[in-house]
């Protein structure tokens, strides 16, 4: 791999963000408009009214006009871009909720979910990956690898449904829908519950929040953990074969110190890259998981938007997901700088 200077690297990454987002929103814009079914039709017929055909088409025409859907696609697209430049994501066709407002509510929920999932996955994955690598060739290694491969293959929908049935219905240990119990009367400030618990001095929020979060987060985390196990194992094995590990042993360091000081820290580099990339698949998984758990994040916003043909919401949610992903990867690049002096200006 060719290495560039870090500042250049990060700058290039950041400069690419708008390009990526533009391309993405164009793709989503087009895909949405290619979908059969029009939001105007759904809105026009709303609520099981007794309509004549003439009334329906009149409604359709009026609604289309109100939503700007009667314009040619190019005009719609240019207007969409113009709004985008002004950071105006428009508002939902269904009611005039501003998309930014919807995202402000949903994004923190998704970030909480994915971060916790990531944390669980990293913990499980790193521990089992390191142990498997250090015990390479033993039954511990073999079983860790098998479990990892199986868990890595589990489809999210199956896992989610299973979790709901087992923990929510059979055992009744955990709540299965939503984000917080209604009785708590939560009025978000930042919509990050943990942060709000501190800001609003409401420690009683934390436990219920965790109880609601743990099942969807674990669902997401499990398949990711399998993946991380594999990566970590491979990475640690690779580092274990590196010459400087032999140097560390030559120094007379105890094995524990060798692993801690030399192996693990060096193994992080490839792991972190992969984690950044995997965050994308985690976001994809959150779309499904949020739907299964009726969890109010960007994923369920997006799915609902697609189902209702609510173009502005879909575009906004897709942008948010892509932005989140890109930023995480920029963060990974920055993290790299911290971790790897070879990338710093030398």
């Amino acid at each position, binding site marked *: 791999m060719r290495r560039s200077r870090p500042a250049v690297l990060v700058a290039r990454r950041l400069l690419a963000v708008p390009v990526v987002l533009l391309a993405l929103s164009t793709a989503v814009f087009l895909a949405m408009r290619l979908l059969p079914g029009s939001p105007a039709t759904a809105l026009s017929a709303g609520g099981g009214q007794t309509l004549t055909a003439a009334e329906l088409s009149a409604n359709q025409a009026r609604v289309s006009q109100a939503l700007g859907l009667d314009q040619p696609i190019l005009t719609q697209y240019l207007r969409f871009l113009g709004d985008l430049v002004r950071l105006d994501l428009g508002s939902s066709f269904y009611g005039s909720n501003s998309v930014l407002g919807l995202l402000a509510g949903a994004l923190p929920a998704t970030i909480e979910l994915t971060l916790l999932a990531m944390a669980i996955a990293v913990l499980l994955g790193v521990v089992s990956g390191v142990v498997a690598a250090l015990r390479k060739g033993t039954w511990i290694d073999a079983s860790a690898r098998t479990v990892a491969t199986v868990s890595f293959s589990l489809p999210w929908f199956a896992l989610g449904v299973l979790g709901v049935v087992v923990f929510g219905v059979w055992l009744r240990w955990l709540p299965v829908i939503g984000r917080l119990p209604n009785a708590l009367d939560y009025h978000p400030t930042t919509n990050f519950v943990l942060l709000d618990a501190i800001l609003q001095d409401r420690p009683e929020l934390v436990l219920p929040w965790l109880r609601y979060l743990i099942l969807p987060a674990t669902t997401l985390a499990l398949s990711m953990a399998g993946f991380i196990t594999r990566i970590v194992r491979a990475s640690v094995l690779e580092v274990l074969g*590196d010459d400087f590990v032999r140097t560390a042993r030559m120094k007379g*360091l105890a094995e524990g110190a060798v692993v801690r000081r030399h192996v693990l820290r060096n193994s992080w580099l490839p792991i972190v890259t992969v984690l950044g990339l995997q965050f994308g698949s985690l976001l994809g998984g959150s779309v499904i998981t949020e739907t299964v758990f009726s969890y109010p994040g960007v994923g369920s916003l997006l799915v609902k938007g697609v189902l209702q043909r609510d173009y502005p919401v879909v575009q906004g949610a897709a942008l948010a997901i892509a932005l989140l992903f890109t930023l995480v990867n920029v963060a990974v690049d920055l993290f790299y700088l911290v971790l790897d002096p070879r990338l710093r200006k*030398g």
Partner: protein
Amino acid sequence: MTDPVLEVRGLRVEFDLPGGRLPAVAGVDLTLRRGEILALVGESGSGKSALSMSLVGLNRGPRTHISGEVSFGGRNLVEAPESELRLVRGKDITVVFQDALAALNPLHRAGAQVAEMIRTHRDVSRAAAWDRSVALLGEVGIASPRENAKAYPHQLSGGMRQRVMIAMGLANDPAVLIADEPTTALDVTIQAQVLGVLERLRADHGTSIILITHDLGVVAEVADRVAVMYAGAIVEQGTREEVLFAPQHPYTMGLLASVPPVDGPIAARLPAIPGSPLTGIDRPAGCAFAPRCAFAHDACAERPALTRRFGGPGHLDACVLDEPARAAARPEGSRS
């Protein structure tokens, strides 16, 4: 200069490979004396590294079988448990590896890597260890050691990295320094610098050095004694003068002859040893060099011991040829 620091008897190192067991070191006897530079020469795969790593158990593992005796300070290191060996490694016996860029941890500062070596074996403060490591870097000839101690390995040049490795090797004033091809990756101009450092060390600290190399020129420059390895065994051993300028073994002779010099007469053709070195699992029962030796005969079917034959008192070889045959084997270009 005569008391032995390290004595190796019947050392065997074998690796389990998919096809069987590879005898990388097939029964080696060797003595390292105080303050001497002993050069271990041989071609790639002849077992030089395997031999030296096994001295301090650095290549121990489930697929490695080490047997024989390495006596150091009254103990047999081959049998010593890992916990005991750890105390020897880095303190009494240290190793300088060939590829310094790979052998240094890319994420740690040069000075910190030297300091870690110190703190592993001595109870000193972080700051003291750092100061000492700066001093050591100065000692091995790194310019402005205070700044360069803060550099990461990738920021140093090849020669400087190799010196960091050497400084690390010296950190605890070891009795034995094993330098595994410390200059092979370096240019001749830089190689000259590093060899200078090694020589000075020996002079200043009285460290015994095992210098592993396949460059006979390097041997000629710095070694006191030389052991020539072929296919896991030592085929000739003696002082530098004896081995380089009065070689007894046909392999040593061939090797010496095949190196074109930078001065003296130019041969029309280089005298070459036919065939190629043994590296596989299958080894002949007798002399390993016999298949390439123009003078091999029936007696070579048995493995010759390494003993004194026609050389000086300490000049040993493992060849059954008689004196005239050896004389005939000596190629024209050979300097004697």
